[in-house]
């Protein structure tokens, strides 16, 4: 923006622009706050479920089958008479744990590979990008279904598949960031004083790209949680009685047809809270770290 533009903008709308900026700042921090608080709540519930739940989540028959929500069973019981609230609480361990672990693995591996590809350039870069393109033409959920169906159910398998599905996105993101920054002057300066390439890439360039990667990590966590639930809903992924939320929704599917809505309904709300928190945090982080969006 030229000096002239700046002056003109000041002259036309000084009173309008400032409160808008302040409000935007405020909103960003608010959505970040809400996201963090909700996520902390989920973590707290997941930890609490290790030591206390109202009933044993895995035992059927603590109530009759399909008890409607009442004071004894706040969220009702499912077809087998297991307490819904207890199962939901324990489910937080699965859905939250899977999403966080998978995203941690995907972001580390993907960012590392992307940094190498972006900094190295040339053949390495081309091969990485083409490979990624092929994987991205493959629908994510389908890929996860195929692999999990093939290698079998299990917590570790689900986590590994989900992290694998996430890697291409991080690779592309980190690659684009590093590729753009490697010819900047501070990179040149870092090279000039004798830093080896890996050091320039990982110590000097990568930390400057943490913002966008972090923002994407949050969005990616929401996506991972949704795929976890989808796999659970299909009965792939985890053993049948696991109180994973998607699994629970599937168990309540018959009840929905006969009026016992609560079995499928509440796990959906639990997913909404978790993925919603991730999205809010991701949005806020993107706003804070992207100077173009910050103005």
């Amino acid at each position, binding site marked *: 923006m030229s000096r002239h533009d700046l002056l003109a903008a000041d002259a036309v709308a000084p009173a309008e622009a400032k409160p808008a900026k302040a409000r935007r700042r405020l909103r960003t921090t608010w959505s970040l706050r809400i996201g963090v608080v909700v996520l902390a709540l989920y973590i707290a519930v997941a930890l609490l479920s290790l030591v206390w739940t109202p009933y044993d989540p895995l035992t059927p028959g603590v109530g009759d089958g399909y008890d409607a929500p009442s004071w004894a069973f706040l969220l009702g019981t499912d077809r087998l008479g297991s307490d819904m609230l207890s199962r939901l609480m324990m489910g937080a361990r699965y859905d939250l744990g899977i999403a966080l672990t998978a995203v941690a693995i995907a972001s580390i591996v993907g960012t590392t590979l992307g940094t190498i590809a972006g900094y190295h350039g040339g053949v390495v870069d081309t091969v990485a990008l083409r490979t990624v393109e092929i994987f*991205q033409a493959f629908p994510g959920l389908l890929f996860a279904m195929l692999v999990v169906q093939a290698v079998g159910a299990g917590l570790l398998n689900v986590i590994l598949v989900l992290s694998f599905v996430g890697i291409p996105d991080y690779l592309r993101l980190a690659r684009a960031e590093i590729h753009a920054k490697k010819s900047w002057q501070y990179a040149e300066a870092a090279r000039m004083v004798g830093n080896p390439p890996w050091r320039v890439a990982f110590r000097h360039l990568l930390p400057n790209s943490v913002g966008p990667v972090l923002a994407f990590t949050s969005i990616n966590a929401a996506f991972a949680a949704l795929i976890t639930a989808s796999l659970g809903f299909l009965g792939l992924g985890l053993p049948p009685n696991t109180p994973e939320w998607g699994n629970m929704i599937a168990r309540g599917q018959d009840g929905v*047809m006969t009026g016992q809505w609560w079995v499928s309904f509440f796990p959906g709300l639990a997913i909404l809270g978790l993925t919603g928190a991730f999205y809010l945090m991701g949005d806020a982080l993107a706003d804070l770290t992207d100077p173009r969006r910050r103005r």
Partner: protein
Amino acid sequence: MTPLGRMILRRLLWVFPVAFGVVTLTFFMARVFNGDPTELYAPPEATDALRAQIRARLGLADPLPVQYLHYLTDLLRFDLGTSFTTGQSVASDLWDRLPATLELGLVGLTLGITVGIPIGVIAAVYRERWPDFLLRGVTLSGMALPQFWIGLVLIWIFFVSLGWFPGPVGRLPIGVALPPKVTGFLLIDTLIAGKPALWWLTLRQLALPAITLGFSSAAPIARVTRAAMVEAMQSDYIRTAVAMGHGNRIVWFRYSLRNALLPVVTLIGGVAGHIFAGAVLLESIFAWPGLGQYALQAIERSDFAALQGFVIYASLLYVLAFLAVDLLYMVIDPRMRTP
């Protein structure tokens, strides 16, 4: 050849390496992980000789590289192989199921666009005020909720509780005969057959899955529209347009929206790719006989050829969707017409 034609041709040719890579990946992944699906298709009391016979019939008797070469040479003749489950050629299976997915997808996507874009515009116009907060809450939940859950809740409300819409039994109520197939789109075929009552039944069956699809695609469309609109509305040319005394509607829809459309179109391309690749879970909830269900069944039954066929179709669709996006760019943004 014009530069535009060359660009289209290059993008279309790009389908081949992508499809090749995806097929190779699927081929080996399915076989290496899943082992031998003969068990699924042999009767339990089958003798070893019968098993060997079945294995040969499924084309699984040869060593892997030979199977792969066979598959590729067939592929060059546009032969996608034979489905283990249906016993028909995969190409004709896909072709039979395509209209169901396309019909649901087109109606759902149309709903998503016609609802999502105005919501985004309204949210941008009222940004940081209560209509914005309300709409952003709704769109956030549209993104954060699993599609299958939205579908189930709609079934619970509108079928089980209120009885306004029919149950999730597919494209037509059970026992109702399909109209003669012309296009495969039931909403069109019923009209060609001259049966308005049947058309109405079809529409009612379509309503709940289409609304589910519409809601979950409207959400990201609205969010991206809002973000792009906010950016456009802060620009100098909009300030000028306002200063020149243009009415709100012209400023919002003709100037701001048009300039905000690029990211929206990109997103819609991605969403369309997703939708037409078959909303797997949605189709399974509504017993919709489309491609998503076919893929799910292929995975469950280790139906290799069917799975590979579907994956080729899906990757083709992605490439085409993004080609369409690039072409649309040129319609929207005149600067892109001169490369």
